């Protein structure tokens, strides 16, 4: 029969917070040689000896731990480990240090709209507007977002990225009339944190008389 071994070392993949109020960690289960293996997430907070167990293994799906508001503090660094145990023994992951402020990854911006602006004195130009992701928008002032958009001709290879800071609109002058473009936007908390996923691709066609 196959040799029965204690589980290998589990790996903590990442931890993310969508709105600086809660956060979730995911791990890659340890391969366990066919034996039933149980995973336990344990954590301690900086300057404290006490060790706590994951408050909620369910909400965020398999191999995950969800920390709700009550269990989320952004005044401390979490030292997180995952232990895999089967009948032959157990193995603990490397510690994963988490500072909630640094793992904020908002959802993408929404309500992207495009408007062609014609004005007497000036060349016509395009104005792209969008809204912050709903969860972040509710906390305006608490979560300040920055935006970056990218566009490229439909059949083009190279994206052109434009950083627009905290504005939720962007004027575009130098686009080729009659051409089709793909536009996407993503956002990030102003100081620390990670870029959201890109918004779904949006197709825009520049009128020939542009």
């Amino acid at each position, binding site marked *: 029969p196959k040799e029965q071994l204690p589980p290998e070392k589990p790996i903590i993949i990442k931890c993310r917070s969508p709105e600086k109020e809660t956060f979730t960690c995911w791990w890659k289960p340890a391969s366990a040689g066919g034996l039933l293996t149980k995973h336990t997430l344990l954590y301690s907070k*900086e*300057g404290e000896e006490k060790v706590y167990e994951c408050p909620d293994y369910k909400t965020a799906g398999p191999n995950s731990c969800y920390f709700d*508001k009550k269990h989320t*503090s*952004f*005044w*401390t*660094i979490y*030292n997180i480990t995952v232990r895999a145990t089967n009948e032959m023994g157990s193995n603990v992951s490397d*510690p994963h*240090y*988490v*500072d909630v*402020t*640094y793992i904020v990854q908002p959802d993408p911006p929404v309500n992207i709209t495009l408007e062609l602006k014609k004005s007497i004195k000036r060349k016509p130009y395009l104005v792209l507007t969008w809204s912050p992701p709903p969860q972040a928008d509710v906390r305006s*002032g*608490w979560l300040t977002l920055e935006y970056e958009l990218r566009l490229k001709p439909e059949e083009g290879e190279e994206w052109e990225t434009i950083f627009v800071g905290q504005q939720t609109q962007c004027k575009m002058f130098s686009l080729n009339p009659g051409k089709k473009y793909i536009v996407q936007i993503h956002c990030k908390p102003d100081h620390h944190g990670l870029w959201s996923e890109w918004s779904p691709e949006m197709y825009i066609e520049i009128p020939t008389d542009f």
Partner: protein
Amino acid sequence: PICPNGSVNCQLSLEELFDRAVKLSHYIHYLSSEMFNEFDERYAQGRGFIAKAVNSCHTASLTTPEDKEQAQQIHHEDLLNLILGVLRSWNDPLIHLASEVQRIKEAPETILWKAVEIEEQNKRLLEGMEKIVGRVHSGEVENEIYTPWDGLPSLQLADEDSRLFAFYNLLHCLRRDSHKIDNYLKVLKCRLIHDNNC
């Protein structure tokens, strides 16, 4: 990366703690100010509440700095303790405000949501301030400064005018005290972290 050399003195710096405290105090005051303005516009116009809301905050007995010189001369540990005292003194009233404000006739959702959000964030700021004081305090933590609040009955008065004035006064005091906390934290941050060169 966070904690490059493992858990050896792996903790948030005082600067990081102050950055977060200031961002939070700024947000709490922004909400308190918006809530006061919304209530004032909707329920207080023409009732002359401002003249009555004089010297009636439950935290008035805490002697807090009233100008730049006083704020700069006070020792940072005393100012931190004062901030803690004001925050603690608001724990109780904010719990009741969040529930009592639901009983105001046609209270708009925006006021209701802010009352709950402020209560939650005030607790969070208190947690952070206790951490900062723990870091900064040299000696024994002094006796806890705290002023009790006995305003619940006035929020439940039958007479509408008196009840609305009680809410007005509480929101006026919350706006004032949250602004003090935000201002003092910005002064302390510039003094302790940036050597008065913000």
